[in-house]
């Protein structure tokens, strides 16, 4: 089943067109990666899907419903949850409070403790630090917290904007392993990355973004094997 569908989406910042008539779909149960260089429009795409930006043209539908005009905070209730770029955690709240903020839009408070357990199982480090203030944690821990917080709304679609940004290589591998695990538990994941190697290796399908347009698409493995992509993004 198609979970998310973008049709001819265009996004402008003032007069500058950041996204040019982009179309793609995300099927239920997939990990889809968007890779691209700086300024390719990756974060713009994410913000358009989560509702922080309004597209200037085209339409977005989620589970068959048109959500193009829907406000960001309502999309969360519908099942789209984002771990924003640069982590975006609340520094003056503790880990537990940050996670609790993730449950804001939920109607079923009864599933919360179950999800809290799930997050703590995925990220045992968060459990150890549950009373620590978000702002005092390391980059990797903040990233875990951002992902964990996004999971607390029990999303159908998890948007991850550069989860590897600013992290040590060893930790990047671990984050990606956890992303695969989250996916195998039934959450569809749309991933934006500069770290093309990991993003392609973990993805079912992937798209390459260049200056606001999709230039390549295929399964993760196909793109990994594509010589042009190898040269441009994998530095081989």
């Amino acid at each position, binding site marked *: 089943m198609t979970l998310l569908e973008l049709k001819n989406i265009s996004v402008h910042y003032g007069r500058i067109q950041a996204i040019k008539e982009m179309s793609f779909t995300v099927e239920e149960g997939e990990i889809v990666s968007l890779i691209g260089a700086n300024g390719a429009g990756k974060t713009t795409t994410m913000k358009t899907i*989560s*509702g*922080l930006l309004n597209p200037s043209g085209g339409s977005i539908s989620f589970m068959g419903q048109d959500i193009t005009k829907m*406000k*960001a*905070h*309502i999309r*969360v*209730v519908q099942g789209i*949850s*984002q771990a*924003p770029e640069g982590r*975006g*955690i*609340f*520094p*003056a*709240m*503790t880990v*537990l*409070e940050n996670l*609790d*903020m*993730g449950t*804001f*839009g939920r*109607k*079923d*408070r*009864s*599933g*919360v*403790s*179950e999800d*809290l357990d799930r997050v703590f199982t995925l990220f045992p*480090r968060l459990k150890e*630090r549950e*009373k*620590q*203030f978000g702002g*005092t*944690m*390391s980059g*990797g*821990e903040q990233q875990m917290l951002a992902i964990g*917080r*996004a999971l607390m*709304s029990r999303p159908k679609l998890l948007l991850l904007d550069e989860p590897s940004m600013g992290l*040590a290589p*060893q*930790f990047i591998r*671990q984050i990606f392993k956890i992303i695969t695990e989250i996916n195998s538990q039934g959450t569809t994941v749309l991933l934006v990355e500069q770290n093309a190697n990991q993003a392609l290796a973990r993805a079912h399908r992937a798209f390459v973004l260049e200056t606001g347009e999709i230039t390549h698409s295929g399964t993760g493995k196909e793109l990994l094997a594509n010589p042009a992509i190898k040269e441009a993004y994998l530095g081989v």
Partner: protein
Amino acid sequence: MSMVDGPTPLHTAKADQAAEDREAVGTPPGSSAAVRRKGWFGGLGEKWQELPRQKQWAVLIIVVVLAYLLPVINPPLISTEPGNDFPLACQTMAVWALVAVGLNVVIGYAGLLDLGYIAFFAVGSYVAAMLTSPDSTFLKIPYLWTIPVAMAVTMFFGVLLGVPTLRLRGDYLAIVTLGFGEIVRILATIIPAMKGQVGFQNLGHPPGLDAHGVPIFANSNGTPWYWLTLTILIIVLLLAGNLERSRVGRNWIAIREDEDAAETMGVPTFKYKVWAFAIGAGIGGMSGALMSGQVGFVNNQKFDVVTSVLFVAAVVLGGAGNKVGAILGGALVAYIPLRFTAIADYKYLIFGLALCLIMIFRSHGLLAARQQLLAYGRHAYNEVKARTDAKSAKAKAAPGKEASL
């Protein structure tokens, strides 16, 4: 996960011990912020949290009684006499404290820099003036009624200003609010019904005559006015405290810390920002009505930008996000020029310097925002968790009767 060793946890052995002690006496935990920001008053919040509930109440009652008795005792070193009447100074301080508490909702909780707060103060003053002064042609109502009316009208103005402008962020919002502050002042000058510089005289006051047939709430009699303002201040504090500890308060904090993240958590940020604005405005309007009632005269001369900036200074000085700090800041900003009349002419220089020093040495204000509100949230959260745990346990025991979600 060896590479994710963050800074060492903040819970020192001593703090942990304190936490255990607290739990032992059954008060909610929540002084970790005090542990985090130790300063001149740093230990104070922590010590306060360590006190058992009964002792906290006892201390609070003593403080409140002392606050009520302040103009009667007229303590020698603190008194503003002979230059200024001390009870009147107390009233001014109480009004400024109320203003600071209101502005603290906007700046401290929701993180919206409002440089035109004086506009709400002005609207409140004019509501009181136009509904009670014989100079006005409007319908007249008893003075005490003007306080809730002023609050309602300014809340309306807060929404009116908030809806178009709260789509802006940061500096842009500050600029627009600065403009709004000026607009209200200029409107008061050019709208004939608001009587510009001539203004309104003989505003109403609460009823009551003393033994000599003089009104209890005479313009020159500061003490009853102070008691009235202080009572309202305490009520507002209790309400603000409840808001702070509620979901609303936490959403404000989330918006202050990262608006986009709050939005992607499902918080309707715009709605909450308008609410913060309206609540702040309402408190500002009340303080305006109280101030002008005591002065007995309102014209367009008192509502300048500088006062607006002083309001912000009061909040920042006291500690944005901390209501006790806001009271302290507001009272201090009002008190210093009245007490030290020799330096009153230099008050802007002194406040400027004080703010610079505060920013350098104590960037969170005299009393830093306590995270206690969040700790209360956690307290509530744990309760919810315990309840849902119990529920799911019950559901497991009787799978047929599982509650629908």
